[in-house]
Structure formats: structure tokens, C-alpha cells
């Protein structure tokens, strides 16, 4: 054939993203709350689980339950293989260079504590500084405070502007010879601000300072490439990416992880033990003491598969559309003010209402079947920065629809009607 037929590129656009079909994968969504269809808009707190995840956990307990890395029997072999397969899936999910760089932990909080207690205690001393930002979740503040208190080091905080964006110049100025570590959120849970982490990492690396990225909110909403970011550590929670609670991931660069002392001692993290000397296991097991959360790791594996099938780029586009629609709709309601209006945002819509406390908003929305988070979102310094005690927060997931945003808007009008 002399002519080549033009084959159209297969583009998975939002128009092929069938949200109604996707919703069928989530059994929990199909219920009534206070007689109204459930509108679940609390995805930044935790996401719902697709049937594939629920079944993976059940099947593991029905068929393969056994301890791993120990027995020679068939069940132990099966469990070990299933568990380690998830490590490889996590490596691919984050585009890590090596599966040894994936450490299983309980969640983002434990991942950050691990780095603070292991890397931090070894490398941060008296008079040194740790730099975070003003938009961090408590889990990326308190572990560093504990470290700084113990070591006589200082916690420095890069400020944010009135839109909730990090002030990059100030951040850069705070990087100095005493800065030993930087920890930043990829995406703010309270404001929805997407930080330019690649740029922040470049700035920190210019001073040879390693950077941890708290990816709890970003991981479910966009493709993360730890090598492209060039971050030294990346932390995420399974339960925020449609997997079970109780499991999460710490990614770390091999060179750093190898130089770090163990976080906890116990079984599995050792190569040999005598009362005189213990030789630690190789990576990643050095950081995984004791029998791990095998079942939920396997559940997390099913969540990775699920997200890979949908394509995170499609999820990202779907949520961007929802957020734009919600921002426009909610902003238009008189007496409502958005908190967090950064140019680069994702997934999260925080708002306050004139003369109405967020707690009351939450209660009234709940009677309409709408689940939002109200309060300080474990980010009290963010609330202080904006001079408010709390906000109401709608946060979107891959299964939310424009109709649900419309329900939220009707709910907000109801709040004004009841309390106005």
C-alpha cells in the first residue's frame, strides 16, 4: 500500500469519562442520608472505596491470609507475592527509580514522622533550621516541632499571601546555611493551593537541602512523578487515593534511605540479631518492623489498578472541571466568601458564610444528605492566617458530578434560609 491511512490518536478526554458508570463501582454512594441521596463532598478527608478494593481485602482474608517474608508454605508465598507486587505498583504510580525506595507505612503522618525521627534526628542539630510553609497540615508541622524541640533547632515558616499562595521570594530567602530540611505540601488540604513543588525543590537543592513533599492531597488528584519533581521524600495515604485506611507510602531516594538509621526495631527489619549486635535488613525492609498491614496493602494495590484503569490525567481533568464549576456557582451566592483563591488550585473549595458558623453549615447540609467537612481541617495556623475560626470545605473526588455541585448550592441557600 502506497498510502498510509491516517489513524486518529486515541485521546481520552473528559467527554469519554463516564462518571455515572464510575459511580456504579462505589457501593457506598448509593444510599440515602436523612431521606436525601448522599452527596459525598468530603474527599479530602477520606475517599470512598471501589468494589475492587473491598473485594481484594475480602479475598485476601478468604484465600491467602498468612504472614509474609517468613513461611515456606503456599499461603505465605501467595501473601508475600501479593504484598510485594503492590510495592512495584507503587513504584510505577510514583515513577520511582527503584521499588526499594517504596516504604510501607500507616499513612502520610507516619511517613513524615519516620523522616523526622530518622533523617531528622541524625542530620538536624542545635541552631539548625527546618523550613515548612504556612499552609501545612498539622501532620507536617508537629513532627518537625518535636524534632526541633529535642535538638534545639528552629522551625521556620514561609508565609502565604491573601489568596493562599506561597510567597516564593520569602521561601527562597528563608533557605540558608542553617536550613537542614524542607517539608512542603504538594496541595493544601485547607485551601486547595497547588504549590510549585518542582520550583521549591530546585531552590532548596541549590543549597543542598533535601525536601519532603506531603502528597496526601495531590496523589489522588494528579499524576506524580517523583523523579521529575526530584523530591527526596514523598508521602501519601492509601485512604485518600480510594484505598483502605491504615496504609500509606513513603518514597525516599535510595542514597538518603540507606544512610538513615531505622525508625522502629523489631522483626522483618533485621538481617541477624544477637544480644551483642544486630545487623539491619536491606531496603526497604529496614524501615518495616513487625508484621505489616498486609491486607490493606493488597487493598491499596487494587486502588492503584483502579486509578490506572481510569487514568489519573482523566481524573485530574474531571476534578478541574468540577472545581471550576463549583467555584463559579458558590462564589455567586451572596454572603458566601471563598477562602483560598490561588491561581493554581485543585480539588478543594473552602468557604465561609457571613454571620454563620461553619459548624452550623455542616449540620444543615447534612440534613440535605450533603457531607462536607467543617472546622479547621487540622490546619489551625491557616485559619489564624485568615483570621477565621474555621471554614466549611467541599472537596471533590473522581465520582462527583455537576449535579452534586448543584445540590451543594441548593444546600447553601437552605442554610441561609434556616439561619438567616
Amino acid at each position, binding site marked *: 500500500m502506497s498510502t498510509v491511512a491516517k489513524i486518529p490518536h486515541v485521546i481520552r478526554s473528559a467527554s469519554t469519562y463516564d462518571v455515572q458508570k464510575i459511580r456504579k463501582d462505589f457501593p457506598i454512594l448509593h444510599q440515602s442520608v436523612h431521606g436525601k441521596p448522599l452527596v459525598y463532598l468530603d474527599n479530602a478527608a477520606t475517599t470512598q472505596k471501589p468494589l475492587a478494593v473491598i473485594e481484594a481485602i475480602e479475598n485476601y482474608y478468604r484465600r491467602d491470609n498468612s504472614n509474609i517474608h517468613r513461611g515456606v508454605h503456599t499461603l505465605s508465598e501467595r501473601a508475600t507475592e501479593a504484598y510485594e507486587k503492590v510495592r512495584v505498583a507503587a513504584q510505577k504510580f510514583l515513577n520511582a527509580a527503584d521499588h526499594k525506595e517504596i516504604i510501607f507505612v500507616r499513612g502520610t503522618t507516619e511517613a513524615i514522622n519516620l523522616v523526622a525521627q530518622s533523617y531528622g534526628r541524625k542530620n538536624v542539630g542545635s541552631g539548625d533550621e527546618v523550613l515548612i510553609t504556612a499552609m501545612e497540615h498539622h501532620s507536617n508541622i508537629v513532627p518537625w516541632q518535636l524534632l526541633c524541640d529535642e535538638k534545639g533547632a528552629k522551625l521556620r515558616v514561609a508565609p502565604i499571601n491573601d489568596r493562599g499562595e506561597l510567597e516564593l521570594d520569602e521561601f527562597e530567602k528563608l533557605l540558608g546555611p542553617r536550613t537542614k530540611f524542607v517539608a512542603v505540601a504538594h496541595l493544601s488540604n485547607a485551601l486547595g493551593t497547588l504549590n510549585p513543588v518542582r520550583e521549591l525543590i530546585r531552590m532548596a537543592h541549590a543549597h543542598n537541602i533535601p525536601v519532603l513533599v506531603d502528597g496526601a492531597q495531590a496523589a489522588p488528584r494528579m499524576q506524580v512523578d517523583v523523579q521529575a519533581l526530584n523530591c527526596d521524600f514523598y508521602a501519601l495515604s492509601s485512604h485518600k487515593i480510594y484505598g483502605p485506611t491504615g496504609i500509606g507510602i513513603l518514597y525516599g531516594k535510595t542514597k538518603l534511605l540507606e544512610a538513615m538509621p531505622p525508625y522502629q526495631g523489631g522483626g522483618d527489619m533485621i538481617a541477624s540479631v544477637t544480644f551483642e549486635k544486630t545487623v539491619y535488613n536491606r531496603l526497604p525492609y529496614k524501615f518495616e518492623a513487625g508484621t505489616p498491614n498486609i491486607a490493606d496493602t493488597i487493598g491499596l494495590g487494587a486502588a492503584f489498578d483502579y486509578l490506572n484503569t481510569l487514568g489519573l490525567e482523566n481524573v485530574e481533568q474531571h476534578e478541574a472541571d468540577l472545581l471550576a464549576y463549583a467555584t463559579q456557582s458558590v462564589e455567586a451566592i451572596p454572603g458566601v466568601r471563598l477562602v483560598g483563591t490561588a491561581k493554581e488550585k485543585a480539588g478543594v473549595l473552602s468557604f465561609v458564610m457571613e*454571620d*454563620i*458558623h*461553619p*459548624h*452550623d453549615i455542616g*449540620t*444543615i447540609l447534612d*440534613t440535605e444528605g450533603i457531607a462536607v467537612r*467543617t*472546622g*479547621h481541617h487540622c490546619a*489551625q495556623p491557616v*485559619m489564624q492566617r485568615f483570621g477565621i*475560626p*474555621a471554614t466549611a470545605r467541599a472537596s471533590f473526588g473522581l465520582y462527583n458530578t455537576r449535579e452534586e455541585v448543584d445540590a451543594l448550592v441548593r444546600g447553601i441557600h437552605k442554610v441561609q434560609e*434556616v*439561619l438567616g
Partner: protein
Amino acid sequence: MSELRELYQEVILEHSKKPKNFRVLESANHKAEGFNPLCGDHFTVYVDVKDGSISDIGFQGSGCAISKASASMMTQMLKGKTETEAEGIFTRFHDLVTGHSAGNGQDMGKLAVFAGVSEFPLRVKCATLAWHALRAALKGDQDAVSTE
């Protein structure tokens, strides 16, 4: 809707918008803070006790409609009461908002409007926050009381 109207009764909304005794009490000889770390509600209750009786009482702070109205109505209710009477009223109020009250608050006077809280268990902490602070103030506890 009816449950909501039970919760957000007119009296409650009025008190939350225009709270009574919403002031720092310079003469206070007792004072305590109440804090709900889950939602950020935060009140300071000031009490002036003379001869075992609450001669004056005020409060300051921020919180939701329920917590603020409860604080406001508490100050109205307790002015002039003895410490023992105040303790008794708190116990009955607590029973009312947790649904353990036999008479549905008929003996509670104006505070009976809080009966609707019992349908919203998550809001019990809001309704009782200022009361816990008051109890701490009367006991002379220096630390802020927390609902958690």
C-alpha cells in the same frame, strides 16, 4: 426540616446573633476557657462569686450558633444562683441535650429550647462547651478545658 427547626429555634438564633452578657467581666474572681479543638469553638467564661452565689457572669469568644446561644442563655439563667444550684442546673441541662431528661426540659425554663440538640449527638459538645468552662471556672481550674 422539623428536626432542624427544633435545633435552630428562634430563641437560639436570636441569642447567637445578639448574645447576652457578651463581655469581659472586670470584677470576675473566677475565669476559665473552654475550647473544642475539633471545630475551633473557643469561649472564656467570667464569673464573679460572692458568698457562694454568682453575682455576675459574662463570656467572650467565638463559636457556632448552638454554642454561642447556649453560653448566652447560661449566663442569663445562672446570674444570682448559688454554686450548688448552678451545678444542679448544668446536670439537668446535660441530661436534656443528651436525651436523658425525663421531662423533656419542662423544668428547665428557657433552656428547654435546647431539647432538639439530643437529635444531633455531634452537637452536644457545642451546647455544653460554655457550661464546662463555667464549671472549671467555679472549681478554680487554671487550664483551659477541652471537649476532647
